[in-house]
């Protein structure tokens, strides 16, 4: 009886959970905005000679850039700067990295994608460095 009950619960859990598991993560553009501004832009201003506003590129350009995953003209990867390891390495001095240190990398990549798509020069809300 107890076994039957456990099986029933498991089956129900799978049935209820399956649609949720099948649903792809949809990027959180608001979180992407915070990370872009406080990690990407902050570093670019300090070390790379200036900020790059999301509205300096079109949506397709951003998509291609992120797909290619080449940062600093191919010297390293964009995704490195979104990785948990990178966030962990700067969390002591960067509040956004600290806040999002445990966010799964793929989610953060999607967050950034969603943000730049929204904020690109042909996006729904073209946004500068702010």
């Amino acid at each position, binding site marked *: 009886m107890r076994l039957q009950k456990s099986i029933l619960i498991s089956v129900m859990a799978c049935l209820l959970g399956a649609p949720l598991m099948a649903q792809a993560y949809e990027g959180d553009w608001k979180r992407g905005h915070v990370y872009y501004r406080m990690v990407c832009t902050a570093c670019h201003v300090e070390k790379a000679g200036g900020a790059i506003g999301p509205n300096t590129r079109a949506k397709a350009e951003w998509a291609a850039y992120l797909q290619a995953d080449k940062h600093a003209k191919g010297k390293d990867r964009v995704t490195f700067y979104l990785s948990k390891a990178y966030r962990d390495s700067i969390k002591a001095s960067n*509040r*956004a990295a600290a806040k999002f240190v445990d966010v799964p990398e793929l989610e953060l990549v999607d967050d950034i994608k969603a943000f730049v798509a929204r904020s690109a020069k042909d996006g729904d*809300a073209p946004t500068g460095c*702010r």
Partner: protein
Amino acid sequence: MATKHWAWESINPDTRQVLGKKRVVNNYCLGIASNYAYCTSCHAGYGWKDNKFDFSAAENVDCLVCHDTTGTYRKPSGLAGHPVYREMEFPPGSGEVLHPVDLRKVAQKVGKTSRYNCGACHFYGGGGDGVKHGDMDSSLGAPEWELDVHMDATGLDFTCATCHVTTGHQVPGSRYSPTIRGEGGPFMRGKVDKRNPATCEACHGSRPHTAETVAHIKPPPGFSATALAAMVNNHGIKLACQTCHIPAMARGGVATKLLWDWSAGGRMGPDGKPMVERDEQGRVIYDSKKGKYVLGENVIPEYVWFNGEVRYTLMGDKVEKQGGYAPINRFAGSPNDGKSRIWPVKVFRGIQPYDPVTQSLVVPHTYGTDETAYGKNFNWQKAVAAGMADVGAPFSGKVDFIQTEMYWPINHMVAPKAKALTCQDCHSRNGSLAEGRLKNVKGLNMRPLFRWSR
């Protein structure tokens, strides 16, 4: 439907003046009459294109503008509060193509308001980012702790509604009838309480400083940290919290407009067509259709005694051109009325059209592509005649320009305590106000600063 975001009209309970965007004249875009389709992109409704809009038609209420979470819902200026339903060139002939909003997606993802929802209008008031308020602009979408300790996106991450807690869609904390001092101590969120929840005191109480919170300040000789905290708390009797804790406005990298000279409009480019001029940072400082601007970042506010009473100069009220600035609004207050506190304000100055015969401010028809719009024909007489006809107000046919000023209380961009004003910012060593922040505040008798510092 009683919300101000729909009615654009409210009665000041103290002065009984009927205010709101539907009523007031300002010195930015001047007024909404005859310019409805442009201004009402910020109305929580659809279709307010003229003075016949039906405010009893619930089907025209736009819920999505406040409750969209996708960040894709937009209401372009010129469409009378409508979003884009199908791909269109707008303005016609401009070559700019607007893409439709995915309304199904937006409707499926409605939620609580965020800073982005409120900011879509309140950050862009006056026709552009940061133009109007000085303490609100797009930098508050994802602000750092240094810009605003409450909205800090990596910390407390307050939304606007965290402080402006609504009840039945009534949003408290209006500049049309400000609360000068939150009385009665902090109150519990969620508990029925008719006080304004959007005051500092509503959370912090009226004596928030303790020995711990002022520990970063070096006390004067003979003062304990506790005594110092008491002294700082006593300052709250005469100073608004904002006076010390918002050391400057427009600190987020977005300039605010400080002066708008409409009388300079109409100058054309070398090709004889309307033009814009930009400063070295690419910001527009002249537009043939609008006149000349002065912009500023990290602007130190002006300071005034303020007891909460605001009185507006409404259309028909007499204004006089006497060399000074005619008030768009007046903040009442004095050092001796027992209520006033010294408050930081943005004083926005303008040079705007008025009727020298009736001595009234006017609302011109500024925006649009028709023949009476100033931005089309650059003729003030036609533009003012059209605007005044829209509201049924008299117009003599003569147009002159008058210097005006409008006061805006500063409430946002609260800095970390280490960036708050210090004693020396106001108290000079000899008691003179000449160097201090409050040098222009009337009726102050400042004590000399002790020989101590942070």
